[in-house]
């Protein structure tokens, strides 16, 4: 009975932790299988412990090339989408103008559209224009679908900004440029950073839209997709594990910095 009561009281916690386990199970499997020494082409069955793949992560033909291509595209897409998105977000929050509702819908629609539909329609456009599919068409597509997410992230931050801070700066004879660079931008920075981070993750990991518009160019997700048919090398699991660890460390570091800054303010 005592156990039943305990179980009842902690039901939510147990359920939540089980879901978290479900969410992390594949990451654990990816990590474990990065130390496998598979027989044959496919790395789906545990054979033997080995650190070969970790010692030679680029030992598979074309994999690291596709990885660096994905990184390049993600960096450029992040820069493009963050600049364009931040400008739109400021315009939407700070100004009243005609067609504001229409602009809002145009921003919202790409997020509410299944990716295949966007991917397929973009391909029709490129085919009609006779565009050469490759790096540039991928980049154009990535900036397009990251844009809305950046706008949403930046908008949320700019909306919660106290406009009196900027008025105060102006009262202290700061020019428009000075006010923007020394007051507005630093306050909006966390929102812009969140948008940029989201854009990077979305672009780096995108498969569906890239698959339609890449032509014969191979990004990392497309390499993984191809290898699922041909046989997955262990190195893919190494990259997957490394990406997970880097993401966790990156976010942890960001939090430590944020905490320290908060403490200094207090």
């Amino acid at each position, binding site marked *: 009975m005592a156990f039943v009561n305990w179980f009842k009281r902690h039901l939510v916690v147990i359920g*939540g932790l089980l879901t978290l386990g479900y969410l992390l*199970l594949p*990451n654990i499997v990816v990590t474990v299988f990065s130390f496998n020494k598979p027989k044959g082409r496919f790395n789906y069955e545990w054979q033997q412990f080995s650190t070969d793949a970790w010692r030679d992560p680029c030992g598979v033909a074309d994999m690291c090339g596709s990885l660096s291509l994905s990184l390049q595209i993600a960096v450029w897409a992040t820069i493009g989408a963050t600049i364009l998105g931040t400008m739109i977000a400021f315009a939407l929050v700070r100004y009243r103008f005609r067609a504001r509702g229409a602009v809002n819908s145009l921003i919202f629609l790409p997020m*509410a559209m299944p990716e*295949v539909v966007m991917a*397929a329609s973009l391909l029709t456009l490129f085919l009609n224009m006779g565009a050469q599919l490759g790096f540039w068409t991928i980049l154009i597509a990535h900036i397009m679908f990251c844009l809305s997410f950046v706008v949403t992230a930046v908008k949320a931050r700019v909306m919660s900004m106290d406009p009196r801070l900027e008025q105060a700066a102006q009262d202290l004879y700061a020019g428009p440029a000075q006010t923007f660079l020394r007051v507005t931008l630093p306050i909006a920075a966390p929102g812009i950073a969140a948008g940029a981070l989201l854009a990077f993750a979305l672009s780096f990991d995108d*498969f569906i839209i890239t698959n339609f518009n890449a032509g014969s160019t191979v990004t990392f997700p497309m390499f993984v997709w191809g290898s699922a048919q041909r046989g997955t090398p262990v190195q893919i699991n190494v990259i997957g594990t490394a990406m997970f660890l880097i993401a966790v460390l990156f976010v942890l570091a960001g939090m430590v910095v944020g905490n320290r800054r908060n403490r200094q303010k207090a």
Partner: protein
Amino acid sequence: MATVTEAEAPPLAPQPAKKPPKKRGRLVPYWLLLPGLLWLIVFFALPLVYQASTSIQTGSLEDGFKVTWHFQTYWDALADYWPQFLRSVLYAGAATILCLVLGYPLAYLIAFRAGRWRNLIMILVIAPFFTSFLIRTLAWKTILADGGPVVGALNTLHVLDVTNWLGFTAGDRVLATPLAVVCGLTYNFLPFMVLPLYTSLERIDGRLHEAAGDLYARPITTFRKVTFPLSMPGVVSGTLLTFIPASGDYVNADLLGSTDTRMVGNVIQTQFLRILDYPTAAALSFILMAAILIMVTLYIRKSGTEDLV
């Protein structure tokens, strides 16, 4: 004119009168909007128009396609591929419900019970976003492998007998069955459910729970009458963020399913990239888009949170 919008700013003391607007500033919002909007119009809106025109074309790859207002393509596409459409809606619906059932306790845990573990759990929910989702989806092949521990356990617990009877699985395997596809979809879109749920739960004032308890509400009643209704915005945006991408997904059905679990995304992909039958593919993706728009509009109206969009 650089007026600050008062409707969306936090409640403030009356603002001092602004300096007289400069004529030059009037165009500022348009200059800010121009590049981004142009991008969306040219690479998002215009392609949809092109696709609409493609869907009513006839012809072949060799002779070229021409607009012939051939609406028959739509009927043919529906007649040929209605099972895939139905499957997309069913699988995405099942995954959405599973995401809600699984995601709610996790979001609740992070919002109210995690204490000093909150940040760590948040990181663990978000971190998979930065790991390739294709690699993680492939990992499910290992987890659900024939004769593996998961399938063995399901067999011992006679779960597979039930799912076989329901038609979710076939024989002694989970891979290449609807169950595997729904499992993958649920897994892939779970964070999209947890994050909005968490955001709306976090806004709830903890004192409301105490008040409900003081009024002798049992925990389950508190949840039913206080917590859940207040989390509705999160439930609505979470279900939309799960259902819409899941219904168009073809990766899970391809990697974890078989030819019997193909969804409409798979058909669009094959028609576009392998068979090169552009009109049919365009018609299919238009039907998918229209179906989702209708369903989402009805759903938003029914759930009474129109201010969400």
